[in-house]
């Protein structure tokens, strides 16, 4: 099921030119952001697709972690934090990443949103932002 707030935010992001999409698969809502720019090196590509699971109670529930389209090389190997079970959603292979909000900068209900979470997710590729990983 797609939460209305998420659908509204994705529509607003699209109007601003962002390449994002929202869909439901097996009773779980996801947002997919295409061609998110990442630094290469160390990453093996200059852009990647990422996917975020949206809880049914978003915007009261926070967003946490994300999936990256795999394979995605890092310094000639696999990144140690891309360690979730590989899954197939929407015809693509994805792998979960433990990338959370640090204790000093928790998710702020009413202020954070999909846009700010995408920024937070990009921080993973830039190796900045969150300090706790596991």
């Amino acid at each position, binding site marked *: 099921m797609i939460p209305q707030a998420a659908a509204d935010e994705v529509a607003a992001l699209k109007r601003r030119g962002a390449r994002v999409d929202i869909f439901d698969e097996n009773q779980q809502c996801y947002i997919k952001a295409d061609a998110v720019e990442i630094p290469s090196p160390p990453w093996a590509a200059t852009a990647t697709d990422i996917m975020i699971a949206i*809880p049914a109670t978003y915007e009261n529930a926070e967003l946490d972690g994300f999936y990256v389209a795999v394979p995605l090389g890092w310094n000639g190997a696999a990144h140690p934090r891309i360690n979730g079970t590989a899954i197939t959603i929407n015809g693509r292979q994805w792998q*979960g990443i433990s990338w959370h909000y640090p204790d000093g900068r928790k998710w702020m209900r009413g202020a954070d949103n999909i846009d700010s979470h995408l920024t937070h997710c990009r921080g993973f590729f830039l190796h900045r932002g969150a300090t706790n990983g596991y």
Partner: protein
Amino acid sequence: MGTNLRITDRHWDTLRKRCAASFRSWTSKETGAIALFGRSVTESSRDLLVSEILWPGPGDIKEAGTGNLVFDGSYIRRAHMLVRERRLAGLLFIHTHPHQDETASFSPYDDSEEPELVANLCEIEPQTTVASIVLSKHAQFGRYYEGETCEPMQRIFVVGETLRELSLTGTAPQPPPSPASIFDRGRALTGNGALARLAGMTVGVVGASGTGSLMVEFLVRAGCGRIVLIDSDLVKDVNLNRILHASVWDAETRQPKVEVLRREVTWKGLRCEVRSIKGSILDERVLAELKTCQLVIGCVDRALPREVLCKLSQQYLLPYLDLGTEIGGTEESGIASVDSRVSYVTPDRPCLFCMGVVDSRQLSFESLSREERKRRLALGYSDDLVMTQPAVMDLNARASSMAMMWARHLLQPFMASLPLAVYENLITLTTRSISSPRAATQNCSICAANRYRGLGDMGPRLGYDELTAASFMDD
């Protein structure tokens, strides 16, 4: 089917205050206002929920005399437009009769003019429904129009810092009947009037386990007339340390928790009817059963049901008491916390999230699909969200007992005011009142910025379809 009005105490008290000038002398003029209402319909009643009152501004009252009041057409049009824009159910016209005191009734002028006004509004928008209330100094009389039919209204439920019930039949308040002698010893705390209301009330109890079973017991022995009891679980042996009345036989034969409690309440013969519903409160059909209640008591231990109940409270103007207990610590480090808590939520109070009682991380995990939750757990950073919570009957009793005292206070106030929440810490032996929200979010879609407050059935669907609700249950 009877028609009632449900309104927050903020709206009702402001309305009465603004109309007070009408009753100062025989020369005082009529006054009034237009309210916008949503609707909650069940098999047995239709409740009009006051979502907003449009107070008249300059020019909105065209004529006001000692025996007549005419709202300006632009005021009525503005209200009608808002009803349509916000997808509300209709308009409530309120006006005073300064010369009426202990009783209230419509005048021949009202009787002749109102049907014409209703017809005009329905011509513009056929879905419009209209209600009208006339206020005397101490009484109020209401009627409800739907299409060409008009029927008298019955009661007003005033929801907020206390729970009041007023007649809408135009008669002065009647002395309450003497209660049965079994309630004699409780009358110092819950007098005849409060007891009569409790006997006529339907209270929803969500959760029939540790705190829920005790809550039911307290309500029955306090004189509650009807309980809607909701829980999806069966009795297991691990529950026997805390579910009142549950037996080894109940656990061995896997009896539904709600049936165990219904059986015991029926057997007691204390004139309390229990409607037991074995189902998830997340299921929209189960949740809808709470529409018949005048008070909801949440005895749940998860964030997702609490979110749904907070939304229900706002959308249907239902008062909601929430209970919780916590035993924290590990075998290695020892006991860190032994807490009980009660919170009170109404449409004019912060929700449990803004109070800081429920956190959005827990809610996030609980409202992912079952498969997604499994993946999160496999990543190893959500273990704390699925730990089996320790629970004991003696601690549960502290929360349930405090909640019952709060329920009594709502019917017959004895405290200066109810805080948002009270935490009792049994390690430090201290009680802490929370009077301001600890995690207030200005644009909170559940409370402060809820667009569906008072919309009732006109608002979005609350809860989930059966399949989705089941997917959120523990594996």
